[in-house]
């Protein structure tokens, strides 16, 4: 039987506000433990929360960018549970008046545009971090505790792990564009819970769903969905049933397992937080946030296809990262071929970033330097191959590409006289190749081009060499 996988996502993203959600402490990573703490975020007796207005504005910005309606008068609720990383023993969240409701994001699956609906976006605070010690003890670091989060909840509109990945990338791109989150998954600023169910193809009712927690990267989201849908299908194929449960994803083992009943059957006893007042979003505030929205990924994508002639796919590759897109636009602003710049960005630059586990924001050289590199190739000063060497050098020790070309002796030899001399010399030394060529073996030319390139230390203009070798062979 054919099955369809149905996925819903709950995405938690840390907001990049300067201070925490309910106190004046800095939100920052990599500090000594418990440096960014105060009576409020340590839940000392008598301390009271005061809502960070910027966090509310950031959440509204996200909602508007994802086409949501904004709740004009909302409350905050306490979600009560005991855990050492949660100092108040309740998390301030939003139960039934999320700031943003009913939006969507369009993703491109193959050639088709697909709409993934968003049920809600609400604000809540992050917990601290437990540090388990080798000796068996556990310490708590509250630096992260109280960092503002938004939780984006989708409708069950996603039908495959690939769609989930595309959606997550879109979310990440939008949050980056509107500058409300740095979306660094390794640092835990973007995390998600994944709801998966399967149903026989054609069936309209949903199957029983399970929820997977602890999914901390796009890659693990894809793996977790694939694992879970396969597990459910096998279960059904063998006549079993799916139990509605919460499962924990183990990324090292590549599998999920059910969380113990106790972990799962929590009664959070939500109720409105009496220490906080209504969040009121007035017209002025809403208009101000609306007008602060920058060009979003979709609009930029369309512009790249229309103005720069990029393919939709290429445009999406670039616009998925605001940094990359900004880099691209700066590089092409001087008039070099957008297509060529795009190819470098999607190709070698992305590859190197990946290898080095760097983000687009970490590119060490300037967009103008990439533009120069492209120009040098277009003008025939250096070969494409030499261009790659220049790029490597730009990553290692960024400086003017022209200087690199000079220092490394990468200038292409296009002097016909000089090349001709090399060609004659090589052909003289390889009589067998001449014989092969005369016998109709075109491959001999490739071999000879290689030999001449070696002789010119890769600096010979390959097109010219090709031409000169053929001429010389034909003349013999």
């Amino acid at each position, binding site marked *: 039987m054919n099955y369809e996988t149905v996925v819903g996502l709950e995405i938690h993203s840390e907001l990049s506000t300067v201070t925490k959600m309910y106190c004046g402490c800095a939100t920052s990573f990599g500090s000594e433990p418990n440096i960014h703490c105060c*009576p409020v975020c*340590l*839940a*000392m*007796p*008598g*301390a*009271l*929360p*005061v*809502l960070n207005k910027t966090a509310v504005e950031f959440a509204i910005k996200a909602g508007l960018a994802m086409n949501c309606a904004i709740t004009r008068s909302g409350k905050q609720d*306490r979600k*009560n549970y*005991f855990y*050492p990383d949660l*100092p*108040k*023993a*309740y998390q301030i969240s939003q139960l039934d008046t999320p700031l943003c409701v009913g939006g969507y994001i369009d993703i491109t699956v193959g050639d088709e545009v697909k709409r993934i609906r968003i049920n809600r976006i609400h604000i809540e605070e992050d917990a601290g971090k437990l540090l388990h010690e080798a000796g068996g003890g556990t310490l*708590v670091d509250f630096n992260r505790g109280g960092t503002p989060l938004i939780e984006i909840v989708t409708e069950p509109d996603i039908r495959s792990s690939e769609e989930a990945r595309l959606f997550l990338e879109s979310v990440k791109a939008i949050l980056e564009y509107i500058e409300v989150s740095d979306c660094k998954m390794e640092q835990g600023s973007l995390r998600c819970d994944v709801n998966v169910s399967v149903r026989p193809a054609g069936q309209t009712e949903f199957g029983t769903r399970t929820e997977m927690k602890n999914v901390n990267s796009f890659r693990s989201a894809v793996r977790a969905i694939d694992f879970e849908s396969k597990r459910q299908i096998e279960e059904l194929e063998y006549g079993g049933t799916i139990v509605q449960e919460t499962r924990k994803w183990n990324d090292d083992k590549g599998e999920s397992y059910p969380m113990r009943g106790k972990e799962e059957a929590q*009664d959070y*006893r*939500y*109720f409105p*937080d*009496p*220490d*906080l*007042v209504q969040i009121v979003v007035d017209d002025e505030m809403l208009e101000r946030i609306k007008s602060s929205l920058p060009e979003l990924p979709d609009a930029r994508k369309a512009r790249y296809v229309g103005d720069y002639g990029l393919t939709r796919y290429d445009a999406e590759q670039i616009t998925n990262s605001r940094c990359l897109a900004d880099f691209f636009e700066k590089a092409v602003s001087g008039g070099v071929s957008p297509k060529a710049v795009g190819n470098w960005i999607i190709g070698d630059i992305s590859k190197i970033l990946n290898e080095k586990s760097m983000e687009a924001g970490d590119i060490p050289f300037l967009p103008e330097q990439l533009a120069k590199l492209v120009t040098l190739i277009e003008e025939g000063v250096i070969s494409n191959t030499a261009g790659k060497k220049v790029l490597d050098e730009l990553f290692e020790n960024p400086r003017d590409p022209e200087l690199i070309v000079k220092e490394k002796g990468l200038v292409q030899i296009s002097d016909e006289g000089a090349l001709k001399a090399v060609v004659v010399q090589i052909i003289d030394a390889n009589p067998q190749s001449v014989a092969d060529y005369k016998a109709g073996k075109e491959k001999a030319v490739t071999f000879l081009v290689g030999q001449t390139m070696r002789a010119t230390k890769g600096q010979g203009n390959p097109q010219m060499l090709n031409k000169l070798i053929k001429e010389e062979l034909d003349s013999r």
Partner: protein
Amino acid sequence: MNYYDLTAHEIHDLLVGKEATSEEITKSVITRIDSVDDKVEAYLARTSEAAIEAAKRVDAKITRGERIGALEGVPMAFKDNLCTNGVKTTCSSRMLETFVPFYDAFVVKKVNEGGSPVLGKLNMDEFAMGSSTENSYFQKTRNPYDLQKVPGGSSGGSAAAVSAGSAVFTLGSDTGGSIRQPASFCGVVGMKPTYGLVSRFGCIAFASSLDQIGPLTKDVTDCANVLNTIVGHDPADSTSLNVSKVDYTKALVNDVKGLKIGVATDYLQDGVNDEVKAAVLAALDVFRSLGATVGEYTMKAAKYALPAYYIISGAEASSNLARFDGIRYGHRTESFDNLKELYENSRSEGFGDEVKRRIMVGTYALSSGYYDAYYKKAQKVRTVICNDFKEQFEKYDFIVTPTTMATAFTFGEKTGSPLEMYLNDLCTVSVNIAGLPGISIPCGFDGGGMPIGLQIIGRTLGEEMVLRAAYTFEQNTQFHKHRAIIGEKEGRSV
């Protein structure tokens, strides 16, 4: 004349007139504490040296010819749920037996800025839950008018200290009557301001939507002066009101002519003590004789106020007190093998019975399946009560009830029945539920010489009307001049 018997405004006059120094006055009160507190047991911690130092600073200021504020140099003390930087703040709980805050409550900061020497921290019912201060983990505070009787609660230490002359004024907190009821039992003035008028920052929370800090004083003038000192917008408390500042002493006008008084008759029928009823009716006659008119009404949802209060306050407490988990501060059990045991044992050992009872009630009321039947319904009652008050205040300028249905009771009399103990709050809880200002002032004594309190309730931010009514009553009666004689049943006049 003993300095410790004086009111704050009397002391202020002495200081300004250079008839006494703050050091003399502070030392007089400290000596008073030394001599009576082994009987009254109002104090949990004392900071006498710091108080004398503060007094000397005020005296130096006076010597330099500088002006001093109304409470400057007037020694006072705090209820022990108000955080004091560097001074133990226990909430009378084993849970916080060794807890020393590194920050001041907003009101503590205000009082310090106002220049009052701080004498120490005062006993209370554990986490402000109770009506007799018998729920303190540490000690029993006794009623200065009769050491066999309770001082009321939960601000029992704050009321007893003022009544005993062990502090000129004190601050307490009032969640369902915790300032007014002990003020009534101990024959002093106690006021709960409008919700949000005084910042709750640094007041260890019992029930966030009901808690409010207020003064306990020897008369209404002092009450107005203390209110002037502690009121003000605090950005650190989201529920703090941002209203323009009022000088409450301007409301101290001896005139109620033409004012309309509403009497909630619900508290003058079944269950009220005859002597209490007589005193309240006599008080109404005083107001009538001064030109006010009195109308009677019955409260809507009167019988639901108390249950609604215990559900809402319990629900909020169950969550507010969850932070006491033995992880970061406070009591941690010695015996645990895992996290669950750490939580369970620390909390079981750290909290007393009444606190546990309220946490359980509140947890139950918020539990899935019961939320609608309890918490949500209680919130509906809250709305009904708020609207009822609003309606009454369209007709009346202020409302009068007894503060309590009876005078102070004997130790142990009600500890066996939590429900009977809860009835102590009957007249006072609706004021917290509606967030209104309410004051209790002395209005008589029963046959045993125990004080009786009159409650005056005002509309939202109607502090001035409440103070005016209370002041007028005071100016036309002598009850506020009574002082307790420790160890003797009869009080005395000064």
